[in-house]
């Protein structure tokens, strides 16, 4: 995938549906599941506070980031990567 940045909000384990963020594409959990083996996939776990600490469910291989670090972290990846932000 050439043009990134795919900012995705996946509400994997809650029943709620989506967070509206303008033109940012949203991915559902099944779609993400199908991509998990892809080497071009980068999952950034951007949950904060208890949303992260009180949850036992963490996506294997996901990188945990503080919100202030997101912009800097996304710059580290080449544009052919698919970056998924996981926030709930």
């Amino acid at each position, binding site marked *: 995938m050439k043009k990134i940045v795919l900012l995705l909000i996946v509400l994997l384990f809650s*029943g709620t549906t989506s967070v509206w963020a303008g033109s940012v594409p949203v991915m559902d959990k099944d779609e993400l599941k199908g991509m998990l083996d892809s080497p071009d996939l980068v999952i950034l776990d951007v949950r904060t*506070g*208890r949303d992260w600490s*009180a949850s*036992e469910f963490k996506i294997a291989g996901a990188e945990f980031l503080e919100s202030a670090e997101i912009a800097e972290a996304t710059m580290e990846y080449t544009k052919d990567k698919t970056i998924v932000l996981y926030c709930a």
Partner: protein
Amino acid sequence: MNRSVLSVGLILAWLVTPESLVFVTRGSGIGGLLFAAALICGGLLALANTMVIHNSRLLSAGYDKDLQVLTTTFGKVMALVILFSGRIPLILLLSTGMLVSGGFVFNEIFVYWFPNFLFAVLLLILLVFIQLFTGKKVLIIQNGLVVAAVSGLLFLGGLGVFAEPGTSQSYSGIKSGFSMTLMAMGCIPFLGFDFPRSPERRLVLLSITGGLLLLLIWALLAMKLKDPSYLAESAVAYRSMARAVAGDPGGYIVGTVVICGVLAGCNALMHIHRRIFSDLVEANYLPSTFSSFGWLVCIVLAAVIAGMMFSGLAGDKILETQILAALVLWFFYVGLRSMAAAYLSGFPHPFTRMIAFLPGLFTLFMGAILVAGNSHVKYMIIFILGVVAGALLLALIIFVVIGRHLPHNPLPRRKKT
């Protein structure tokens, strides 16, 4: 059922919350077996404070209410400042955190499609509903919740004895040596002993001892099953421990324990706030017409908690620091309450009098250690000062604004010379 027996549900309410379990598992990861020693010291400190706060000399002198003891010792305004700053942030911040944790547990263990946040809100509504019952029924429900939580913890703890040790079984923590911060962490789970009013002292002592044994089992289990670095970092270690002990059923059991613990902790906090309100009316600090509006206190508190939840506070990591600051204020409250009790007891022997002050003094010291040992020490001090200022403002509102309209103004008027 005897009211005195029912007070057990209040004494153990904080001890069975997921927050306490997190302190136990984290402490076990940090200090290993030394944390078990810290837990024993914490239990002993709680026992010593109980001996002072509920001593027979004080009760026979007619001092059985927190407000009464604090007012006689520190004066009316200071008593309210101590009471409000020790209690109000506790219910607002702890409940917000615990309810959100309860929501996650329900969502991740029981019904994955049910929104965690919605479940947290439903728990809050349930708490308000419980508080609409009369005092004794609330205490019966409270005891039911605590019994369920304790039974689950005991059952899992018992099974844990036979569980296979974790691959990295280690009884030493990630930090070597005993520290005062570790000691203060060991004191935190025992704070709830001050919740009931004039309970049988023997019952409080038994409850604390039982609670200490329960937490020791869990601390040793944590060290047996999990890696110290994982324990020190994780806020959900007790969940993976339960599954390591009993598989998926263990997860369901610990899920039930957590939800019952959250309800018990929040319900106990609501109950004591309602009691503080009725004490204020009884002390003539508030109009007597307020006496039948105790339920309104719970609704107002629940509304504020709901507001904090909807504002996303639980998703902000500063909540953990704020909760710790609220716990520090709880330490200060207990310490001052214990010292006030020692002062009013009028022990005849100077040595006994001096000894009676020590548990309270040590509790204050433990609170100060928690502040000093935190990485956000500046924020904590500002937060604590802010809470004290808010409590002072609330006390002044009660005395100056509301008290002015009372037939017997609680503040003595200045005499004209």
